[in-house]
């Protein structure tokens, strides 16, 4: 079932525009008896091509992680309703049986989590945890698996891999743990890798190393990478295409350079403006987005971001109550969900500073 032979850097199959992952109208509802349903993810669609990196960006609670868990089929069965379609290389995953999904996970799609310490079992040596995945998905003897595990650790830049294999997670540094987890995720050269805030728990220099490692691996193996993050620095350094999420919906989609140069959704503009800048005057206050992610209205009543939006007008809230603001095409390779987007003079594209948008 694994696509992997012994060589990891096999050329990606079908380098055409056939996407590895196609998510269409994905919705996740948490149902609880006696309470109103929570729509954590609400009609999200995106696709990833081989070797491409996309970013899912948004603040805590906007549905990024639930989206990724839904794609991997890792959401609990009870009290959760998943609808829409998730296709991995054309194979439908929503509603697929548990055993099929388990066979795909680790082999064709893998995930790296946020906290590298708690994602490793503290009572089991690193080596056992890496070989476990190899033995599960690839036809290997234990001896071969150990050799392969050492090779994998070496590949992600862990020195002295044979010794490290015998060690326990608490004996490794944070960066090394995350490298080990990436090695595990990539052990069967998956077609799709989802990284859920892989650098949040690490310090800045290690963050840079891990991001560089991920970039190299994606380029080498043609893996499709989905980066889930709230860190715009990560997006700027790594992602080809960015989807900004708010309250369970994608509100703006654009290529990286376009998004940073000309954010159209006021929320995206706010996110970019709130990043501390080295070239701002000393002592200048940061520009936050007012309110918090809890100040939303239902998408069915208009725009969820409207209560916090500076450019919100009456028709964002009251006049069109009962109708959602649609996600519409907005220029080449751009999509936007906003009635009153930030406008730019038709003059040269790079003329407007993103920070000035608000």
């Amino acid at each position, binding site marked *: 079932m694994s696509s992997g032979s012994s060589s990891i850097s096999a050329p990606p199959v079908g380098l055409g525009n056939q996407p590895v992952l196609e998510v269409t109208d994905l919705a996740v509802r948490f149902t609880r008896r006696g309470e109103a349903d929570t729509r954590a993810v609400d009609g999200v669609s995106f696709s990833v091509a081989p070797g491409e990196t996309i970013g899912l960006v948004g603040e805590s609670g906007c549905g990024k992680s639930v989206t990724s868990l839904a794609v991997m089929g890792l959401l609990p069965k009870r009290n959760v309703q998943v609808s829409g379609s998730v296709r991995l290389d054309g194979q439908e995953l929503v509603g697929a049986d548990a055993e099929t999904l388990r066979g795909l996970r*680790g082999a064709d799609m893998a*995930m790296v*989590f946020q906290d590298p310490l708690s994602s*490793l079992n503290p*009572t089991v040596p690193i080596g056992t945890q890496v070989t476990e995945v190899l033995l599960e*998905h690839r036809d290997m003897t234990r001896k071969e698996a150990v050799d392969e595990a050492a090779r994998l650790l070496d590949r992600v830049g862990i020195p002295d891999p044979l010794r490290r294999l*015998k060690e326990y997670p608490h*004996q490794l540094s944070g960066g090394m743990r995350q490298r080990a987890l990436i090695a595990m995720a990539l052990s069967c050269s998956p077609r799709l890798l989802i990284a859920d805030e892989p650098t949040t728990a690490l310090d800045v220099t290690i963050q840079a190393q891990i991001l560089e490692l991920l970039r190299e691996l994606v380029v080498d193996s043609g893996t499709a990478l989905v980066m889930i993050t709230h860190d715009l620095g990560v997006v700027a350094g790594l992602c080809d295409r960015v989807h900004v999420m708010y309250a369970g919906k994608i509100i703006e989609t654009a290529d990286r350079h376009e998004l940073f140069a000309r954010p159209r959704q006021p929320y995206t503009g706010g996110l970019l403006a709130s990043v501390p800048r080295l070239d701002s005057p000393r002592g200048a206050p940061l520009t936050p987005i007012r309110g918090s992610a809890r100040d939303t209205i239902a998408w069915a009543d208009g725009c969820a971001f409207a209560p916090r939006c500076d450019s919100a007008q009456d028709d964002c809230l009251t006049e069109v109550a009962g109708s959602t603001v649609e996600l519409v095409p907005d220029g080449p390779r751009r999509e936007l969900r906003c009635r009153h987007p930030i406008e730019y003079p038709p003059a040269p594209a790079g003329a407007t500073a993103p920070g000035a948008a608000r």
Partner: protein
Amino acid sequence: MTAMGDVKRRRIDELAARAGAVPEGEGGVSLTRSAFRRLRRDPVAIIGAVIVITFLVVAAFAPFLAPRDPLAQTLLSEIRPGNIPGAREGFPLGVDNLGRDILSRLIWGSRQSLMIGVVSTVLGVVVGMAFGVLAGAFGGWVDTVVMRFIDIVLSIPSLLMAISISVLLGQNQYALMIAIAVTQVPIFARLLRGSMLAQRNSDYALAAQALGVKKSRIVFGHVLPNSLSPVIVQATLSLATAIIEAAALSFLGLGDPDLARPEWGAMLANAQAFLSIRPELAVYPALCIIVVALGFTLLGESLREALDPKFRR
């Protein structure tokens, strides 16, 4: 200038080599080994271990250590109501109401008491863990059914439960062990289930799932090993309670029907009749029970600390 630089560089290399050198046996210290190493440094653990090992040695070598036959009735002629011989020459702790050597009976009694404690605890741990794994691994209705059953067992006072079972199974020492084991089962089942449920939602279980590891492998390879340490600790503490409970049951007359076989609880019960005139007859076996229980408790407490991953370095 260059000489200075060379010296400095050599010094730095030296320091780096020293810092980088891995101390013997540091590469991959397993959980049990590091716990054992920490136990050896803990004075409380050492005291507990010394007590427990002493009693184990005494029990093992009872035939060689006991100065006399624990069943032989001597000085019968001198024993009359109201006149129980106390300490006398050749009998370090005196004799009981039937003229049997107290010290020899205590030494032989350690066998019986420790065996009941160990066997019933092992039995309780094994059965309790089976229930705990069942409930913790499957969850859902299996969990509900198993746990309600365990709750019912738990709601009956343990001594009452043990009494009913030993009455039910007839009076022999195996019935006693089973009775004590049954009262231990719910504790271990609840404990293991609780810690497995907590571990099942942990990040590494999710990460293993995300890598397509089989469910059985996640339960037995990841969740169970991480849930065991409270069970191990509770087992050492339960050993102490089991010994006390065994003594309590024999005290109530539900113990070993072979009255001749020395056992601390039975000795205590026996001494009750003479408590006002010869209190030491009760003090000796009681002291043994207390000290053994203390030894196991101390060991268990420090084991809890040693196994806690938060203290690992």
